[in-house]
């Protein structure tokens, strides 16, 4: 389990725990199954091994087949139930009122992060206004007053300890928003607004990757998530809003 990058999210603890159990059980089942091949072949080479020829299967069949099948079905059931509890906790909860809203947009080969500003609303975007060289990579409509205080950033700044509600978009092709350190992944699909919530806990820098092949720059499509204290975050946001 120490192969996983350090976890910085509240719900990551439960995920790491469950994943750890799953991997442990599955690994030892794998070892047991492979050992059974070795034993069967070794018995043969040592000249032993059940003759079994012509012996009816009945009683043995029950021990060798039905009992293990029942046990393994029980294991699948446990996996199903625990897995879905975690899934429900992660995906089916209403957004807390104090959640920070961030819009994440994937563009070949860049992530953009938009904060709605003091009015709490995003300005409309228009495809024909999109122009990264002109400083408007998302095509925010200057005619929409709600967009005037929007903050667009190439770094995802977040305050520690506050729930985050992400709206996930893509401008051109499907991208995969993947933050290994937050145990977070969802596809950004053009034409759709995806929703994703989590709570960053531990301050620090986390890699944001693209996990869905999106073109020649796919492996370079990386950004940084920087989790800071609430005060530092407030100061950063205020500084970004000020020039407008």
């Amino acid at each position, binding site marked *: *389990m120490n*192969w*996983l*990058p350090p976890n910085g999210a509240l719900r990551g603890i439960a995920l790491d725990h469950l*994943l750890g159990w*799953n991997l442990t059980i*599955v690994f030892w089942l*794998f070892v047991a*199954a492979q050992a059974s091949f070795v034993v*069967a072949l070794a018995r043969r080479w040592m000249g032993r*091994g*059940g003759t079994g*020829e*012509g*012996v009816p*299967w009945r009683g*043995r*069949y029950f021990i060798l*087949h039905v009992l293990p*099948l029942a046990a*393994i079905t029980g294991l699948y059931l446990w*996996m*199903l139930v*625990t*897995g*879905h509890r*975690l*899934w*429900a906790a*992660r*995906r*089916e909860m209403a957004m807390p009122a104090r959640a920070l809203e961030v819009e994440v947009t994937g563009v*070949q080969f860049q992530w953009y992060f938009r904060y709605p500003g003091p009015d709490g609303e995003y300005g409309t975007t228009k495809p*024909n206004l*999109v*122009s990264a060289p002109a400083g408007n990579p998302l095509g925010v409509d200057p005619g929409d007053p709600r967009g005037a205080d929007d903050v667009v950033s190439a770094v995802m700044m977040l305050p520690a300890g506050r729930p985050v509600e992400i709206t996930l978009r893509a*401008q*051109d*092709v499907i991208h*995969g928003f993947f933050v*290994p*350190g937050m*145990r977070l*992944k*969802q*596809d950004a*699909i*053009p*034409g*759709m607004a995806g*929703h994703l919530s989590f709570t960053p806990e531990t301050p620090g820098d*986390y890699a944001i*990757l693209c*996990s869905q*092949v*999106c*073109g*020649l720059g*796919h*492996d370079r499509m990386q950004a940084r998530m920087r989790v800071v204290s609430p005060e530092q975050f407030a100061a950063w946001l205020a500084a970004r809003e000020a020039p407008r």
Partner: protein
Amino acid sequence: MRRIFTTEPKGLARLYLWLGLAAVIIGTLLSLLMRIHRTWPQVAMPLHGVIKPEDYLALVTMHGTLMVFFVLTVVPQSAFPNLVLPAQIGSKKMALPRLNAAAFWITSASLLVLLAAFFVPEGAPIAGWTSYPPLSAVAAAGPGQATGMDLWLVAIVLFCLAAVMGSASILATILLRRASGLTFGRLPLTVWSWMVSSGLTVIAFSALFLAAVLLLSDRHLGTSYFLPAGLVVNGIPQAAGSGSPMLWLHLFWFFGHPEVYIVVLPGMGLASSLLANFTRRPVPGYWLMVASTLLIGVLGLGVWGHHMFVSGMNPYAGTAFGLTTMAIAIPSSAEVLTWLAMMFRGRLRVNTPLLFVLGFVSFFIAGGLTGPILAQPALDAYLHNTFFVVAHFHLVMAMAGVFSIFAGIYYWYPLLTGRRMNEVLGQIHFWISLIAAYGTFYPMHLAGLAGEPRHYAQLRGPVESFAKLIPVERGITSSAFLLAAVQLVFLFNVFWSARAKVALAGANPWKATTLEWSGEEHPMTDRGPYEYGSATGRSEDFRPQWKAEKPF
């Protein structure tokens, strides 16, 4: 010419095997180029130079397409049925012979169209074998997405057509051409497998055919099945559409998941038959195996959504597909446990075909066990599209599939040449392949856990995992080279064992019970497929299906 334009099933089987061999050689070389690039990114390739990121993605796309369609589908689902299916049910011919022969020619055309993508301007497509739109729909989205992508789609359309034609012929053969007395309860499990995999092929490849045609239409006829409104590619707004890429995901995976079972079901049938033969015991729970095969086929059509847990579809759909996926693990486990029971209770006759069957079961378990982990949407949300998934499907589909193909070739080789393949070379081939295949694919789990995404031309995952992963990646590359190199032993064996000097194996060299070994057409039979065992006081320890208990 008659050998080439044949409608005779064994002749077609030979042609399919040559085609599969060509595809697997190219596909393997592409994968080695990928491994070299991931381990030593700056090394220049002869005749090409340094591999650019788009070259790497083209390699991934073509490797996946060649292996999944032209090797793992063509050999178990086209070559083997033509080789033995009619004979196993007492016939010399397939039903619909011309349709069946045409399927081969369309498959060959498909392969040529696909390979042509390497030679057009901008080269082969880069969208991966799943070709998600809009990347695959908009030519401006990347190099290879213009002509290369068109060729890929035409190749897929042709392949789907051929797959459905071939499978229609297989289904008709099983239903119409069985020997009298060969009831469903007397069919070898390979025949049951081909019945289910052919049914799946007709359904799944029809969906892919449709998807590919619709995507071609989006690209050239101005429709927008897969293109939403407001698309901006390379800073240029695209024509307004009203479709969704999600439609492609659903159609593709409605094909893509049954495809996995199309690949492994014939291997599962073969494993049961060969374990019965090489332990000289009947298959216990014949009807349980049949029921499991059918259940895998039916459930296999209802699990596609587990490829889409992170696509942003409704979370309740994630729960539903997680449930069906967990359910399909049960009949799969039932078959595995039957094979393990057979292995333990019977007296193993260790030879190359048996070893490859055991290898198939070993990989099916190794890769299958991570299935229920990936079937949990919450855990998949971390593991999706990482190397963990690459490890999973290369073990459960690719290696299990390839080992069952080897088992089939070693076992049925006497039907093609009258001789057995060299046993010493066969066992060398098996043991080195087994170790190298585990060495190549098992450590990929670790890269996945470390958060390394697939389709990355270079190791660029989370910084924390870099240092740990470099030795792992080098080990994987070395193993991959060993795995590829030892296949030369197999190729040598294929030709070496066919020499006139090698002694003929005689009819029925494996003392098998099924009809393909009788050497002639058998219009009647009155017994089951696995009557092994000596306890009944006969001189031979098996009763083949072609020897009648009493005169008809």
